[in-house]
């Protein structure tokens, strides 16, 4: 069995909901036309029943595996999990990942040009929800000629989308793998999102979102990302990764220039993020996460899962305090109350929320076994 990368891949684009139609959003507004950037790996089989949809998190994109060019330094964001012989084995499965609507990596979002005005949407872009993201993905899946997905998988906000798939399209997905996710964010998580948004909106360069073609809110967005990264780590992982080690110095500087490695790391993460991400997208996507609440939408979590038909593999991580295990257990309980088949495991790890990207070995053996077990049954 080979175990490698999918190699060079191409990002493709699908445009739908063109005038006079449009995508009807959860808030009643209509968005259109809508473009989704997506990538696919592996081959769709003749029965068209081997498709797996991967849903990305806040800062992810459609480029989940492989390289877009031979020069590209880093592969897609979940390279370790997707490829020939890997957990999502592209020798067997047709893997799809699309950039969410509201994003800034090729799909329609606030930085896209509004065809009606000829200018970027900015804040005239409607507030979108996780449900809207999923409806758009459904259009893409249909476009690819797939009636029923073999599986939908996602970590963090990607897991919210996976849950929404199970709820919105119960007859169109056989397996659902929500990882490091929740049915609704805790107030603590919403609080961190709000700090990030305030950092962006208080940057003078933000200009009420109308910064396209001008200087962008670099400082606000980078602070938002720094705060985000703190929440993705854990106390233990920060001890391991940085300790109290100093950056490029042996003694304290007695000034306000970077002293500690942890500071340097956050600055680096913030600086590199502003080069690849749109500040308005950050506002819209964090808002979509904050609004996601299956209990509020369906009366109770149990009711939310009433119509689901899929089998579930729910995974949480012991040191994840942003999407804590108790939230996954609540999902599991509600699914069980509906008589659904659920495998739930909490993986012991120090990596915090980031574990869904880093605990490749544990995830691979679980996912591989789960998919293989389903093939047999």
């Amino acid at each position, binding site marked *: 069995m080979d175990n490698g990368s999918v190699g060079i891949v191409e990002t493709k684009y699908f445009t739908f909901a063109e005038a006079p139609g449009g995508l009807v959003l959860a808030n009643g507004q209509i968005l259109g036309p809508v473009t989704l950037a997506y990538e696919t790996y592996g081959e769709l089989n003749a029965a068209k029943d081997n498709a797996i949809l991967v849903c990305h998190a806040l800062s992810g994109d459609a480029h989940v595996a492989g390289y877009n060019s031979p020069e590209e330094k880093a592969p897609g964001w979940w390279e370790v999990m997707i490829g020939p012989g890997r957990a999502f084995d592209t020798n067997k499965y047709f893997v799809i990942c699309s950039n969410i609507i509201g994003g800034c990596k090729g799909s329609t979002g606030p930085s896209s040009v509004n065809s009606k005005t000829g200018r970027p949407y900015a804040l005239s872009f409607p507030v979108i929800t996780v449900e809207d993201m999923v409806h758009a993905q459904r259009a893409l899946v249909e476009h690819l000629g797939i009636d029923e997905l073999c599986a939908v998988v996602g970590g963090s906000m990607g897991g919210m989308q996976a849950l929404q798939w199970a709820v919105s399209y119960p007859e169109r997905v056989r397996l659902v793998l929500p990882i490091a996710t929740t049915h609704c964010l805790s107030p603590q998580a919403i609080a961190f999102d709000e700090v990030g948004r305030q950092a962006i909106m208080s940057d003078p360069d933000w200009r009420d979102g109308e910064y396209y073609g001008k200087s962008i809110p670099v400082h606000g967005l980078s602070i938002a990302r720094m705060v985000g990264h703190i929440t993705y780590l854990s106390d233990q992982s920060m001890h391991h990764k940085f300790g109290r080690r100093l950056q490029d110095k042996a003694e304290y500087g007695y000034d306000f220039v970077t002293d500690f490695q942890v500071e340097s790391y956050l600055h680096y993460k913030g600086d590199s993020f502003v080069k690849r991400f749109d500040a308005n997208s950050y506002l819209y996507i964090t808002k979509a996460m904050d609004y996601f609440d299956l209990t509020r939408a369906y009366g109770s979590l149990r009711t939310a899962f009433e119509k689901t038909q899929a*089998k579930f*593999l729910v995974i949480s991580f012991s040191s994840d305090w942003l999407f804590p295990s108790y939230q996954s257990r609540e999902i*599991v*309980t509600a699914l*069980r*109350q509906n008589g659904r*088949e*659920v*495998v*739930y*495991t*909490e*993986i*012991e*790890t*120090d990596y915090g929320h980031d574990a869904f990207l880093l605990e490749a070995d*544990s995830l691979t*053996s*679980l996912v591989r*076994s*789960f998919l*293989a*077990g*389903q093939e*047999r*049954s």
Partner: protein
Amino acid sequence: MANEAEILSEQLAGCPRQDFRYIIDLVARGTSVLDLGCGNGELLEALIREKQVRAQGLELSERCIQACVARGLTSIIHGDLDQGLADYADQSVDYVLLTNTIQVLHRPLLLIKEMARVGKQCVITLPNFAHWSARAQLLFGGRMPKTGRLPYEWYDTPNIHLTTIKDFRDFCQVADLRLVREIPLRTVGEGGCREVHFLSNLRADAAIFLVESALSLGHGLPA
């Protein structure tokens, strides 16, 4: 990285295989089964194969859950038995199994009552501390007994609530359980066992009990 509880769970390694036949025979075809501390899922797999049960498992060890998933089991929840069964509705399962595990629980009475609430019937298997070999080791050797079913040194045993067949009969009264069937077993050779028909508390090194709640008639009403 395994924590202490997980190492403990793996030490137990689930139900001894020689007991399978007796447990499987107790379970009616096409019913639902919840195996508490289901280990690597071997017993549940056998129950699916032979009795076409709807199988659910609860297990503490992450690695055991992986093993269950690899067997194709689809209802396995990561959880700690010492936390009870709050997530499970009254009389929602035909059989709740607790094999070779009662002796490691912190609060066996609590869990047994929970089992009888959730399951219409419960199958409990345990090593019998009153087996003659254990008695002899203590009486003549003056040291803590070690047997095939109780292989640990006193200082690293996970077993904190060892019991005997007679003790368990008394315990059924305390826990408001009706004893439906008792199968004392004696290990024969490597990996075999036979039912013991007399002097069971002395001659059996393990026992299987089929019990049900003495409080209800299956619908939560007092008897």
